[in-house]
């Protein structure tokens, strides 16, 4: 995700590659012949996008129907907004929305600033060996699967012999099973996310920091700026646009809690706080077979996400910040 930020802007055409313009750009047949090899190379990818990206978008219309597999998509009865209405009037809805937003807020207000802080701490290191070693270590968790991370959590917090279960209960003077206690669900999710993603998240900020002109620091030093003043007046402004871009993406993904982590961490005891949109879609759709209803939930979520990402992008533009589009 980190890498994505600026790439989106690179869709623009570069300079023309071939010196001579095509003989007749409007001539479809001529183009087909002229570009036949390129079209041939393009075909498998186009087929992929058609099958696995756009066909599902067409299929998402079952959110407005009572989908019965036997009748097919078009054959199923059209019911309009019924499934959306039943979701929004369902008591599950405020609970799921709340759970999702709380987890997103924890990510936005705790995990995200920690990423920036870690990037700035790494940036202050002048001993390159140390910097590279720490970077190598903190990137590793990003590559571990959620299954592994959740299993590690399970072993560390195992009742009876988990090292963190022992330590934390000794500290708090309690006897809690952290993995089953609803009060501990959110802290554990946040802890996992921080452990897994903070290191990796620094890459994009470190890249922005590496492009800061060293003369700016030297000039600041000559002007008598202390370390904090340099951080405040040189480092932070240098990564401000990166922060804005990352904030836009985070806001756009605010309803995306990540299915695997939440699903793997949820159990019968903590479902009240663990249910989020993604897991709710899974349980109602796959487990209970309510295809149309769950598609409506997923679609509502995706559309809100789309509005959020364009909204924050427009806001950033208005605030004279570079957006992502």
């Amino acid at each position: 995700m980190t890498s994505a930020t600026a790439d989106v802007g690179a869709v623009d055409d570069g300079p023309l590659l071939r010196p001579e313009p095509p003989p007749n750009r409007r001539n479809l047949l001529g183009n087909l012949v002229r570009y036949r090899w390129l079209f041939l190379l393009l075909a498998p990818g186009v087929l992929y996008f058609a099958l696995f990206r756009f066909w599902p978008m067409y299929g998402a219309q079952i959110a407005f129907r009572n989908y019965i597999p036997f009748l097919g998509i078009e054959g199923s009865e059209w019911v309009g907004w019924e499934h959306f209405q039943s979701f929004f009037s369902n008591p599950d809805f405020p609970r799921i929305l709340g759970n999702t937003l709380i987890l997103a807020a924890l990510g936005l207000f705790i995990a995200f600033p920690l990423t920036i802080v870690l990037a700035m701490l790494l940036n202050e290191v002048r001993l390159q060996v140390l910097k590279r070693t720490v970077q190598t270590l903190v990137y590793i968790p990003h590559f571990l699967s959620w299954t592994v991370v959740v299993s590690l959590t399970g072993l560390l917090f195992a009742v009876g012999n988990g090292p963190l279960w022992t330590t934390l209960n000794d500290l708090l003077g309690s006897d809690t099973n952290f993995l089953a206690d609803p009060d501990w669900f959110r802290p554990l999710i946040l802890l996992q996310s921080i452990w897994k993603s903070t290191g990796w998240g620094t890459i994009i900020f470190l890249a922005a920091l590496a492009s800061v002109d060293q003369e700016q620091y030297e000039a600041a030093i000559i002007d008598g700026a202390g370390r904090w003043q340099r951080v405040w007046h040189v480092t932070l402004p240098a990564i401000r646009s990166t922060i804005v871009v990352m904030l836009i993406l985070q806001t756009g993904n605010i309803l995306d809690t990540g299915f695997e982590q939440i699903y793997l961490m949820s159990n019968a005891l903590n479902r009240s706080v663990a249910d989020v949109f993604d897991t709710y879609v899974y349980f109602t759709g796959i487990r209970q077979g309510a295809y149309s209803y769950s598609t409506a939930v997923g679609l509502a979520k995706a559309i809100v996400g789309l509005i959020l990402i364009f909204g924050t992008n427009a806001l950033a533009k208005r605030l004279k910040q570079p957006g992502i589009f």
Partner: protein
Amino acid sequence: MDRRTYQRFNTRAGRAFDAVNAVVLIGIGLLALLPFLYVLAGSLATELEITTRPFFVWPNEITTASYASILSSRVFVRAFVTTVVVTGVGTVIQLALTALMAYPLSKVDLPGRRTMMSLIVFCMVFSAGMIPTFLIVKELGLLNSYWALILPMAINPFSLIIIKNFFQELPKELEESARIDGANEIRILRSIVAPLSKPVLATFALFYAVGLWNDYMSPLLYLGDQDKWTLQMILRQVTASATLTADDMNSDVPPPAQGIKFAVVIVATIPVLLAYPFLQKHFAKGMLIGSVKG
């Protein structure tokens, strides 16, 4: 930075900050590593040590009983082999599809290119969601097939755009001369563009491989048949519930119930850690290539 400026950095407060910063960062680095070291030590420890010692990174008595136990499980070995094959085949297919599509899209005079790029970007901000995709996979008859783990996520739009941008920035002279010599686009891609892009392609091959290896959602959704489960599914089953099915173990002694959890986590992690040095060599560069323009 010249010497005089450096010395102004090098004040007493500056050095104190550097020292504190170094200690904090080393601590953070260790935090990233310690849970894993504990599990590694636990996988090599006796059942008694795991249940009595709170935290350790070196077992008092080293035993491979846990590994012997999981390796004697047919369920586990089959899942491991399956995952290796799916990851290997899947990586080749996913990278090939991505690179083949990226190449024509890197040609700025390709008719319809802008439309296609817009559609691809649209796929990054909007997706139909879990259920419609599931129904298409079902419709295509891919349920309970390993293709369902590979094809639905075959082309990652982010990777596609980054590889496309990289192709676009390659020097054009070689391509042009090959074109004048009558080489077609497929030949140019194979013998000029691909060799020049090896580091980038290697990076994304590894990203795809890690994605396939780590994938839990696809097998959960698409593989109802337990006999087809991949390593991540087995890992989940072992660590969340009890053990590998007891009757599956070809052993007279009871399996070390705690130890196998530790050992399975390690086996599921080691391949990723082995790939990591190669990943690390290129990823920062690979990941940032595409963002140069932005």
